[in-house]
């Protein structure tokens, strides 16, 4: 029994087969199943509530935003057909696509945009909350028009309309409910190219093609399996045996990358992270003694051998961080105060400081072996300058909890920068964004009125040169205070079979949904 839609798919496949030359030229073929690794298992797929890496990866198939961004961070239309920014930089007018439907068949309208941006995300998404402070009003003159009026110019605003930041949430399901406990969170509904089908906890997440997708012929593949394979070696084996075809960045151990790379029909790319600019660091809980002392923090900064970690743990991929900005983020400045590895200097700083043999608890990131080894290496680095450190084990949920409750001394994390310091950096250092309860805000509780002011001003400056100068000052100030221990700009290679076409074609890589992916297999 073929369902009508399968008939269409078969017909299209037949057409594709009928013109082999075109296929070779890259005419997409329909059909097929994509098997992808997801690591670790996401706590939820509701992208409006949870925004950690794995949730963004799966959620990016289900949810969409108004725009998407190419590898140069230039916007392309997604749910918006066109958009316009007024000359004074105050008014943003989006024209939505016609005929877009949520997975439950309800039409997507400007009311959903308003609800998502103004109600849902403002409540649940700490990063969005800070962006939305710039918005004076949202108007919806008709079903397909949304007008954002800003309080003052805010350059980065055009860069926030991607699924991980501004996912479009169905108003008819969430309005008037408690968002966090809405049962619909377990069966997420968006407008994306794939629909949620099944989540076998601990095993796989299955998404199926959205047959009513508004882009002709897309998505090409029938369904996507995200396989939960908790062990890194097993993930590598799963690729080698053909169980999975795509290994997103970070899913195999870094020392296994060369082995995968040597396999037949295997492509590798480090693209698809331009928007994220993943930067790893250790939160320093400055509410705890003796970490409130800048000399102790400086000592830790100089004690940590990051070049070693890069070479021994990250296969030489990535870069040693120079401070709070990733070098791929706009307005990065490399000429900041010295934070290089220097154990002698670290010892001297520690001797001058208020450190008194206190035990420093290091909370590792529970994202696999590399991170575990990294915590061990840091522990050893610290003990070499005479600090007593211990590793606190945890799982993903426990890690979120401990960070939210500020129950740690040092804690590994890595966060995305979203291309612009006003989007991805200020949230980590703004004094007003430090309330406990979120693992993604100013967890270190860094309080510096001067940088707060500079961040505020720089975000609103119209002239990029002025912004550059302000952010230069910010970087100098923050690096001198060492509120966090900056580690590496992470390099995440995506490994995939070469006959999987287009797995990475935007600045978001595999997180941006598999809308354009097709499989060149018979």
């Amino acid at each position: 029994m073929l369902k009508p839609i399968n008939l269409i798919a078969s017909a299209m496949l037949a057409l594709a087969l009928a013109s082999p030359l075109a296929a070779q030229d890259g005419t997409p073929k329909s059909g097929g199943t994509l098997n992808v690794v997801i690591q670790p298992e996401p706590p939820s797929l509701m992208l409006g509530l949870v925004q950690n890496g794995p949730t963004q990866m799966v959620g990016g198939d289900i949810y969409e935003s108004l725009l998407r961004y190419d590898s140069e961070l230039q916007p392309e239309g997604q749910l918006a057909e066109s958009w316009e920014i007024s000359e004074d930089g105050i008014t943003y007018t989006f024209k939505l696509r016609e005929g877009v439907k949520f997975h439950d068949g309800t039409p997507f309208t400007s009311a959903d945009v308003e609800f998502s941006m103004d109600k849902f995300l403002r409540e649940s998404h700490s990063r969005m909350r800070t962006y939305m402070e710039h918005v004076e009003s949202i108007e919806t003159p008709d079903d397909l028009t949304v007008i954002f009026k800003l309080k003052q110019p805010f350059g980065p605003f055009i860069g926030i309309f991607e699924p991980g930041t501004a996912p479009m949430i169905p108003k008819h399901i969430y309005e008037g409910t408690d968002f966090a406990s809405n049962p619909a969170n377990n069966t997420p509904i968006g407008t994306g190219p794939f629909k949620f089908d099944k989540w076998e906890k601990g095993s796989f997440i299955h998404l199926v093609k959205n047959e009513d997708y508004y882009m002709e012929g897309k998505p090409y593949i029938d369904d996507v399996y995200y396989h939960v394979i908790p062990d890194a070696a097993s993930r590598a084996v799963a690729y080698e045996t053909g169980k999975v075809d795509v290994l997103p960045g970070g899913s195999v151990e870094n020392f296994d990358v060369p082995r995968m790379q040597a396999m037949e029909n295997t492509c590798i790319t480090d693209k698809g992270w331009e928007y994220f600019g993943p930067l790893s660091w250790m939160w320093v809980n400055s509410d705890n003694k003796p970490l409130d002392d800048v000399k102790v923090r400086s000592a830790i900064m100089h004690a940590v051998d990051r070049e070693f970690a890069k070479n021994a743990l990250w296969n030489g991929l990535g870069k040693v961080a120079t401070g709070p900005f990733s070098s791929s983020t706009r307005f990065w400045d490399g000429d900041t105060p010295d934070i290089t590895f220097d154990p002698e200097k670290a010892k001297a700083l520690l001797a001058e400081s208020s450190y008194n043999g206190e035990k420093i608890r290091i909370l590792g990131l529970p994202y696999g072996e590399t991170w575990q080894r990294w915590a061990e290496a840091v522990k050893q680095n610290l003990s070499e300058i005479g600090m007593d450190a211990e590793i606190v084990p945890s799982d993903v949920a426990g890690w979120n909890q401990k960070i939210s409750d500020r129950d740690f001394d040092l804690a590994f994390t890595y966060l995305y920068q979203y291309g612009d310091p006003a989007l991805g950096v200020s949230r980590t250092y703004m004094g007003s964004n430090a309330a406990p309860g979120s693992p993604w805000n100013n967890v270190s509780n860094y309080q510096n009125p001067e940088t707060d002011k500079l961040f505020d001003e720089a975000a609103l400056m119209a002239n990029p040169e002025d912004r550059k100068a302000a952010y230069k000052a910010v970087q100098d100030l923050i690096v001198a205070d060492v509120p966090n221990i900056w580690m590496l700009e992470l390099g995440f290679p995506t490994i995939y079979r070469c006959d999987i076409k287009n797995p990475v074609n935007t600045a978001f890589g595999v997180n941006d949904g598999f809308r354009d992916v097709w499989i060149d297999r018979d």
Partner: protein
Amino acid sequence: MKNFWRRFSYNRGAVIGLFILTLVILTAILAPFVFPQSPWKMVQRPFLPPFTDNALLLGTDALGRNVISGLAHGAYVSLLVGLVSTIVALAIGVPIGALAGYFAGRTDDALMRFTEFFQTIPSFALAIVLLAIFQPSLMFVIIAISIVSWPPVARLVRGEVLSLRTREFVEAATLSGLGNTQIIMRHILPNALPPIIVLASLMVAQAILLESSLSFLGLGDPNIMSWGYMIGAARTVIRTAWWLSFLPGMAILLTVLSLNLIGEGLNDALNPRLTRKTQ
């Protein structure tokens, strides 16, 4: 004592086992002196193969840590966990078994149902659950292992006590007016000791295996270099650096084997009538 040693040494395996165990114990004791540096210290480039550098005889692991130092310090951890958790398990299991066996009847029923409650849950699964609830630290690893390993002790002691309590010397003790505590402590338990000793030697081996398995799964104390941890950390590189899992694996194998051999020898020595070889 002389007899004991003679019977023990009849069992060749037991002597070899004792020799290996002595080596392991010596290693554990001497580790802090021979390798004063922390086994976590990153001393050389990662993945240095064995026998390439005389100072680092067995090479280095994924972070450039000295493998032989890790093995030596791991010996201490393994023996400590094995011994302490066995002692704790005996401390729980012996009294429960003795009380159940001596008083029989309802006490026996109650205590044995309680014991069975623990016995019906697979011990490794229970240990994992316990460690998931506790913070994985060395103390909780020991506690978890003790909690899952006392029921066999209780059952064994109960059986022994049940058979001893009807003997004449116990009746004589009762008639001479001794209290229950004294009878159990002075007359019954000493006679039940041989099988307990044999079981205890096997329990040490069991505990070492359990600790290694837990550490292998990442449920051990992350601040302690143990053999199980070394295998767990090295398993991802087993194709490129097999020796990193092989060496601690051998260490576990030899230690556990030696304890089993010793257990067999003790059995021969302490229960001469049950053995075949000494006949």
